[in-house]
């Protein structure tokens, strides 16, 4: 998988690159509009992570360039602008996803994976880990072929953890994944704990391995 990150904030660019290293992606970075154009002209990327405010031009123009030149690279916009208009403009220009800064790297990772699965999955709608299998299409989890009845939140949580396999995912990023920015308005993220508890309980009942781990006060991790 080749991923291009176009982001002028070098420190953030490095964070994203570093996070993706574990995923066996081939990551390349570009810090400006011109650099970005040069990259996309020469290479094909499975996924481009695109900032809107770039030195030398707008990320939206870059996206327009990409699409008018008939390049079908997947694009996820990352932007500090969170108005609905910006989102619609980005998606209309052919972006596959839109993520508002500041975001969690685990969220970005999950979005990239979802994008790649959508674009290149070619019918492979199953995610497996040990005796756990998740069918993306029917949104169902199975333990050794036996379905586990999960609520929507529990299912989303499981999928999120799976996308960030072997990584610690913070409670706040889970809360935001489940509720978007509205999570900010919740007085506490303790509900994440009860979701995790229920999920673990349901999986255990079906005889799943204990793959969800609690990491001190930091968050949770699926081990596989």
């Amino acid at each position, binding site marked *: 998988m080749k991923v291009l990150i176009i982001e002028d*904030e070098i*420190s*953030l660019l490095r*964070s*994203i690159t*570093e*996070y993706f290293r574990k995923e066996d992606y081939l990551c390349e970075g570009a810090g400006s509009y011109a650099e970005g154009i040069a990259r996309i002209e020469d290479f094909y990327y499975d996924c481009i992570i695109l900032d809107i405010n770039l030195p030398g031009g707008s990320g939206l123009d870059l996206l327009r360039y990409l699409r008018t030149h008939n390049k079908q690279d997947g694009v996820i916009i990352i932007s*500090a602008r969170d*108005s609905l208009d910006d989102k619609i403009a980005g998606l209309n220009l052919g972006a596959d996803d839109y993520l508002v*800064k*500041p*975001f*969690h*790297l*685990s969220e970005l990772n999950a979005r990239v994976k979802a994008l790649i699965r959508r674009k290149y999955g070619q019918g492979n709608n199953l995610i497996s880990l040990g005796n756990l299998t998740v069918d993306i299409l029917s949104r169902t989890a199975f333990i050794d072929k036996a379905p586990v009845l999960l609520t929507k939140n529990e299912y989303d949580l499981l999928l999120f953890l799976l996308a960030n396999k072997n*990584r*610690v995912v*913070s409670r*706040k*990023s889970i809360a935001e994944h489940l*509720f978007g*920015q*509205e999570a*900010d*308005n*919740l*007085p*506490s993220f*303790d*509900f994440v*704990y*009860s979701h995790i508890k229920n999920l673990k309980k349901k999986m255990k009942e079906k005889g799943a391995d204990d793959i969800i781990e609690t*990491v*001190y*006060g*930091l*968050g949770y991790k699926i081990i596989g």
Partner: protein
Amino acid sequence: MTKSLQQKHTRYLFARLLAVLLLGSIAFYFFMRMHAEHMQLKQLELRQRNLQSAFLLQQNTLMPFHITGEYDIAENGTLPPQQLGKPRDTLVFYPAENKSLPFAILTRAFDANGRHYQLTTYVSSTEIDHLIMKVFGTEAFLFGLLFVVIIYINYKTSGVLWKPFRNTLQKLREYDITKQQPVELGADTGTREFDELNEVAAQLIKKNRQAYHQQKQFVENASHEIQTPLAIIRSKLELLIDQPNITAQVAALLADITEANDRLSQMNRNLLLLAKIENNQFPETAAVNVSVLMEKIIAVYRQHYSGEFPEIETAIQPDLLINCNASLIEILLNNLVKNAVVHNIPGGYIKVELTGDCLRIANSGQPQAIASERIFERFGKGTDETRSTGLGLALVKQVCQLYNWKVDYTYQNAVHTITVMFSAT
């Protein structure tokens, strides 16, 4: 007790003008009296001269010695010399009418043919008294009229003259620095003082506006700039917590840093949101079903609040539509509910009432820790509640201000109540 300038002016003039006119009348009366007496004296003296010369010419035989009310000639008169030549008052009895009339008299002595005579001349005082009374009456009437007219004119003029002032005052009163609309103070009122006042006020407003604008810009720019470092810290923290072999001690540190950073992010986001609302960056409005939205928000809270959730009692009128921005009303309702949840007490309750155009959220809570008027201020926090950014109610207020809704806070018997009147005030 303060009075209007017009009242004060009139009152001031009233007292002084009355005093001046009264004193003037008294003086006028005395002057008139004085002149009348002088005239009487002259008449008496003229008579003296005429009668004396007539007496001397007539050789004392033909002329009567006494005519009532005209003169009196007394041979060897007995009036003491010190009274001679000085006018005196007396009463003369008229038997025909059976009454006494006042007269002014003057007596002088003269010699004729070796004999001593004393001549007393008479002038009636009645006519002159009547004249004085009539003139004085006319004067009093004129003064009275003058008094009323002056007061009236003054009252009216003062009203007209101060009109530009009242206009300016009204405009200044209506001026709201948080709204973008400019203030039009009349540049040419026709009165130099008011022109100056308007000019100075306009300058003051301009300066204040600039300062306000700069401050607003600063907050906005600052929160914009802070966003990036916060995002970087967040990403680095995510990388850090994902490191292998983290000890419990390091994990605890990281958890604290993450939490603090998240709080900072949230605060910053709220500050940006405040700036955006203030800049009117939520122009789209639609009829929002507030009743449904409120139920939804309460449901979300109930679902995701672990720990003891306060008892919620709702009285929500169904399908209440409010014309506003959908995101803003959601922010408003969310923050009100959050406020009521976070600042509650164990085993407490929340009462949500949505009827007509009025939303009332009451919750049990700790005694008031912050003055009522400061509760809607930014960072006007009463407690060191870590779950609160100190901006929630400021956001509520900001949204209300945008739509001219009235928002009120009251505290009574350990119950905190926030009321929002959706009808424009």
